[in-house]
């Protein structure tokens, strides 16, 4: 990592330009992916990512450069490129950095780098054996353990120097079930912003069994019917509906340029009364948590929607300038290769008062989406889609039979108003969110909710 004096020198060089703000983001990330098939370790991929990103602002204009050659010649040459793009000038631009210290909210007990590969492959074997032990129809099991340790330091021309270490671990199991030539898969992917102590609470056995269970359900599933119908979306990763239908459209990246369906809607009603939602980057050791955002500001809990009223956007520094609003500490990026922008952290709908059973009452024909896959949204139009990985048809208020191959589509602005029941059973699930500043870990979450009407895409001919 660069020394404080070097950072001060580089920032001073940056400010000898028409820039009104300069920032250096430096990163050293170690990661390791261990993959096994049927319990045999096939690949270990260890990666060291190390580089810096330099950003200059002149009012609303931003110039950015990145490199992993951190020799002085290379860095100064990039700074010259940036100054040329923005306009150089000869001014006294001394920067004195003050390091900001704080208490780490995301402590790690077992650093993955201190554990032997043999012990880590044992975690994969445990998940593998549990999946195979579930049922003889489980014919293949893929497992992967991912460990990441990212150290960042962020320094800016306002004199702030701050560091953070982000650690995360994830176990991914995919089980394949086969019967009469029909091959189906099921997956489970728990993770946390923790070290390997995570697997004391969420055991590899649970994950292996869950992946096998979903594969077996899909083996018995029939094609999903299509059309508009009420849908119950289960807790945990079901929260991807809020992430896609609303979360992305509340990011300043879209809002600041008037490119979101929710631009200019602060203080107005955008969701049903029963919907309150937050984006909270402060939850200790959660998958999407950080001590600081990628502009060096302390992470926060942001109330986005309260009883259906839009209370806050997620704003980064540059878009804050565009919107005449303060940053909400929402700036994130995959790595030094990306200029940061407003992104989510751990985003979820808050618990309501309904019981799980009540949600099924009165549904003549609908869908119970127990496990969701990923999705995407067009923030400008609000149109979103996401996949159902485990679903059941509801008939006459009861779960009827499992269905496969379903997707849900709709318009974010409309769907938030169509949520008519919210349970109390809040749970989160882990995902990787892709957007302008790369792929980042985010938790999605919700209690079980009911949407009165949504378009279900399926293949059943009826």
């Amino acid at each position, binding site marked *: 990592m660069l020394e404080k004096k070097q950072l001060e020198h580089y920032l001073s060089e940056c400010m000898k330009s028409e820039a009104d703000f300069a920032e250096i983001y430096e990163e050293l990330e170690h990661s390791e992916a*261990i993959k*096994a*098939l049927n319990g*045999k*370790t096939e690949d*270990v*991929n*260890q*990666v*060291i*990512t*190390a*580089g810096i990103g330099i950003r200059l602002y002149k009012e*609303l*204009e*931003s*110039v950015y*450069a*990145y*490199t*992993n050659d951190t020799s002085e010649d*290379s860095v100064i040459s990039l700074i010259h*490129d940036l100054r040329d*793009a*923005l306009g150089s000038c000869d001014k006294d631009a001394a920067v004195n950095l003050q390091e900001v210290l704080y208490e780490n909210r995301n402590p790690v007990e077992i650093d993955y780098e201190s554990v*032997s*590969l*043999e012990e880590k*492959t044992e975690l994969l074997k445990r998940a593998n054996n549990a999946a195979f032990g579930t049922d003889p129809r489980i014919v*293949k099991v893929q497992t992967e353990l991912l460990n990441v340790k990212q150290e960042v330091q962020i320094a800016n021309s306002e004199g702030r120097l701050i560091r953070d270490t982000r650690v995360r671990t994830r176990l991914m199991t995919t089980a*394949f079930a086969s019967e009469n030539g029909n*091959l*189906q*898969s099921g997956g489970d992917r728990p993770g946390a912003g923790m070290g390997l102590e995570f697997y004391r609470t969420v055991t590899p056995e649970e994950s292996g069994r869950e992946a096998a269970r979903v594969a077996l359900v899909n083996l018995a599933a029939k094609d*999903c019917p*299509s*059309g508009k119908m009420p849908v119950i979306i289960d807790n945990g990763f079901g929260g991807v509906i809020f992430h896609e239908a609303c979360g992305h459209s509340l990011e300043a990246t879209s809002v600041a340029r*008037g490119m979101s369906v929710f631009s200019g809607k602060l203080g107005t009603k955008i969701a049903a009364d029963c919907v309150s939602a937050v984006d909270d980057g402060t939850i200790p050791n959660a998958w999407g948590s950080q001590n600081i955002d990628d502009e060096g500001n302390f992470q926060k809990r942001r109330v986005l929607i309260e009883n259906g009223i839009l209370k806050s956007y997620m704003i980064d520094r540059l878009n804050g300038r565009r919107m005449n609003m303060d940053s909400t500490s929402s700036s994130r990026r995959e790595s030094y*290769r990306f*200029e940061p922008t407003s992104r989510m952290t751990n985003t979820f709908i808050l618990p309501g008062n309904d019981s799980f059973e009540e949600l099924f009452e009165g549904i003549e024909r609908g869908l119970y989406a127990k496990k969701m*896959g*990923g*999705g*995407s949204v067009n923030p*400008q*139009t609000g*149109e979103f*889609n*996401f*996949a159902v990985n485990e679903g059941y048809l509801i008939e006459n208020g009861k779960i009827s039979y499992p269905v496969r*191959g379903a*997707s849900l*589509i*709709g*318009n974010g602005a409309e769907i938030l108003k169509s949520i008519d029941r919210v349970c109390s059973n809040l749970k989160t699930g882990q995902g990787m969110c892709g957007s302008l500043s790369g792929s980042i870990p985010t938790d999605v979450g919700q209690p079980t909710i009911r949407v009165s009407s949504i*378009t*279900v*895409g*399926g*293949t059943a001919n009826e």
Partner: protein
Amino acid sequence: MNKQEWIKAALAAGFDQFEIYQSGTKERSYTWFEGKMDTFTASRVLGTSLRGICGGKMVNYATEDLSDDGMDRIIASMKEQAGAITSDEPGVIRSPLPVPETAPQRRWTTPTAAEVRELLADIEQRVLAYDERIFMVIREGWSEETGTRSIFNSLGMDLEDTDTVQILTCGAAAKDGNDIKNEYRSEIVEDIHTFDRDAFVEKLCTDVLNKLNASSMASGTYPVIFESGAMTALFTAFSSMFSGDLIAKGISPLRDQYGQPVFSGKITITDDPLRREAAQVCPFDDEGCPTSAKTIVDHGVFRTILHNTRSASRINAESTGNGFRGSYASPVEVSPMNCCIEPGDKTLKELCAEMQNGLVITTLAGLHAGINPVTTDFSLQCSGYWVKDGKRDHSVSLVTVAANFLEMMGNVTAVGSDLEWKQHSVVTPSIAFKGCAISGK
């Protein structure tokens, strides 16, 4: 990095073979918003990936923090990896073979910063002036990137090639009442001075305006044409089915289908990394294996399984030169390169005329989640337009299309002639199918 020293140290530490793969990129990009330069980005990045064979096992290590004094630590870590691998599969690092000569297929003219600014400003003005319903130009940008990759190994391989690409991207948002739609277009530009700005703007603006006033439609099974862009996206999402790696693992839908008819007889699929009209020409893959043209599916019959060195060695076959990395830090996977469904002889208009009544799908969303690569079932959000009596009628949005890809590819009614390579490495023309389940109202 002293490559010879690294190889020497690895062999001395007990490695049988050792390989150094490097990928360097130099990039300059601009974005433009509301009449002004919005962002400028410059970068210079070098990534190194090391592979070694130790005790018969292949191990990987990728790093951007490459000082020769970290050499011993990294080699020791790679040795630990070899001890942890329990797969019986022997690792192979390739001996050098002659690679095909390739002449530069494009003549790049690098524009000055002022020329880029002029282009972006001009395109923005032209788009806004095209139609009063177009109210915003979004994500307009120019990027130019030069990439170099090299492979150096203990068996004497020493290969290097360089590739350049310049891309213009622009989006437009259009509004009619409360209905807002957007569309994006990107194109490779060899020379700003000869680039056809009118054609670019015309296509972008027509596409976004055509999306306005779209409605959903009644659920049912309808004849469908996947327009070239949508078909390319769908086919790309399923293109791993030809991978020798997934076939050997038994999780490709074509696992028992080699030599069998798998698609309609109207479908022929080729893979040719040397194809000159494609964006990138690769005379060797990321393992240094020379590449060549192959027919994967010949009139519906599955004729060639794609392999990298590892998947080929499982069945005592030869690599097909399809060992590519997603990035320098990713392991070598089996990937198609400049792969296409061979075009037919009918234009999209003629396909519509033949279909008479049905849906043309122009855009698909959610491909990263809404497909099952094992069963090939998919259910995806789509938009497009309804064809009535052989002609475009009204726009359609907020519907889903669902089918089983293998079954669908057996029910092809016609293959279009509109194949365009653009910047993709997998492309298809428009294709008409007998029927797909559409879910809407």
